[in-house]
């Protein structure tokens, strides 16, 4: 039987792993991304997502280099994203060893790129990252370009649009919940999971292991977190223990 997945997310800004709180990155987590990957490998994480959240496109080359170094020691599937604005750069990330491409703003600004990448590398290679933020009336809307521009679209509309363009998976995040320590945005997450056939990865806000269980109960196929994995020793092992005890089927066992 297919297991639910536990995913570790590394947020990279200008080459360093940073902590993200409502999409602001004031805290640098002082270690090398490669070291982080080695720990996650030992701790039986099921997949790794690496996002380049640097504010300008000139960070791309350095990021591709980080991906290449990470891949030498990464023996789980790796999804990477940030500033994928053309097919050549997408290919260079795959050649560096990535398995999946995470695209976000491209779904708004460059749908033909998404379609081309999906048909060239297959739907399973395309992860649609979507950031949800509530407006002043409390209405959840999808926001792109590092949370700077609202699309005016609801999470459900946006998720369906992403799948139509060729996404094989949805990476759901909430600007309001990011780093806020109160669990996932379950209301929007539940709606997105019910609206699409492709797997949904829940992200944003995990501070206790029970938040992971809530994500699975909302319909997610995979649950992701970032900050909590950096600050807790053997974090993914503990997280899996909690998921197993809650009746969620996950892959168990460690690497070493």
């Amino acid at each position, binding site marked *: 039987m297919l297991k639910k997945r536990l995913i570790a997310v590394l947020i990279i800004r200008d080459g360093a792993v940073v902590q993200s709180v409502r999409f602001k990155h004031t805290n640098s987590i002082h270690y090398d991304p490669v070291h982080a990957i080695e720990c996650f490998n030992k701790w039986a994480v099921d997949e790794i997502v690496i996002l380049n959240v640097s504010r300008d496109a000139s960070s791309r080359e350095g990021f591709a280099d980080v991906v290449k170094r990470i*891949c030498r020691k990464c023996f789980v599937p790796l999804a990477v994203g940030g500033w994928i604005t053309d097919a050549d750069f997408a290919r260079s990330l795959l050649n560096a*060893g990535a398995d999946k491409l995470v695209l976000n703003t491209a779904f708004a600004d460059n749908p033909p790129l998404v379609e081309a990448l999906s048909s060239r*590398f297959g739907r399973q290679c395309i992860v649609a990252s979507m950031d949800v933020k509530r407006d002043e009336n409390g209405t959840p809307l999808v926001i792109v370009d590092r949370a700077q521009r609202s699309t005016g679209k609801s999470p459900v509309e946006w998720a369906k649009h992403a799948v139509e363009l060729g996404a094989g998976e949805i990476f759901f995040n909430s600007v309001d919940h990011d780093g806020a320590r109160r669990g996932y945005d379950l209301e929007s997450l539940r709606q997105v999971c019910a609206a699409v056939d492709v797997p949904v990865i829940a992200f944003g806000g995990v501070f206790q292991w029970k938040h992971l269980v809530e994500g699975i109960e909302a319909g997610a196929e995979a649950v992701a977190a970032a900050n909590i994995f950096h600050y807790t020793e053997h974090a993914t092992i503990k997280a899996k223990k909690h998921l197993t005890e809650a009746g969620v089927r996950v892959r168990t066992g460690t690497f070493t």
Partner: protein
Amino acid sequence: MTLPLYSRPVAARVAIIDYGMGNIWSVQNALVEVGAVSEVIQHPDQLKGFDKIILPGVGAFGDAMRLLRQDGMDQALGEKVRQGVPTLGVCLGMQLMCKSSTEGGLNQGLGWIDADVVALEPAPGIKLPHMGWNAVTFTRDIPFIHGIPSGTDFYFVHSFHVVCHQASDVLGTCQHGQTFTAMFARDNLFAAQCHPEKSQRGGLQLVKNFVEMP
């Protein structure tokens, strides 16, 4: 005790076939991790002097066969397989070893094994492609899977699966709405539908076993 250098077995040289589809670098990283010497091979005339061959691949069956035929790589590989060179097919590479696939219309494969490739069947509650970690149940025991308990989870990404016509060729099965062949082995041919290079401990053990077998 460390053996003197001259009596250590010489590391196997592994050829990784690069026909333009799939993540060959992940396969090479896994080989480095288990201590094998490998080379990425793009032309049939480079295919000399290797002890083992790995045929990886991600993507569409028809495109892959066209690329393999383009410069005669299909013939060159077939010759090596007939000579008895241990050959491992991974994911699409496993499927290419079969006689045919129905992906994108009926396409002929390399035909090294009595098997065909068909689509996984949709079923209620079953998401396709089959993507994620799933348990492989071994149906027999050979050195290729030594040290890996039956029921170990491996990472899968696929929508089509291999049907072996000789039940004795099946090595391991997996369950996703239906039971399908996750691994097969016959003589010098070995194949996995999952990605050993992305399946942590169990996957690396499989790669190591392949590299170290005589």
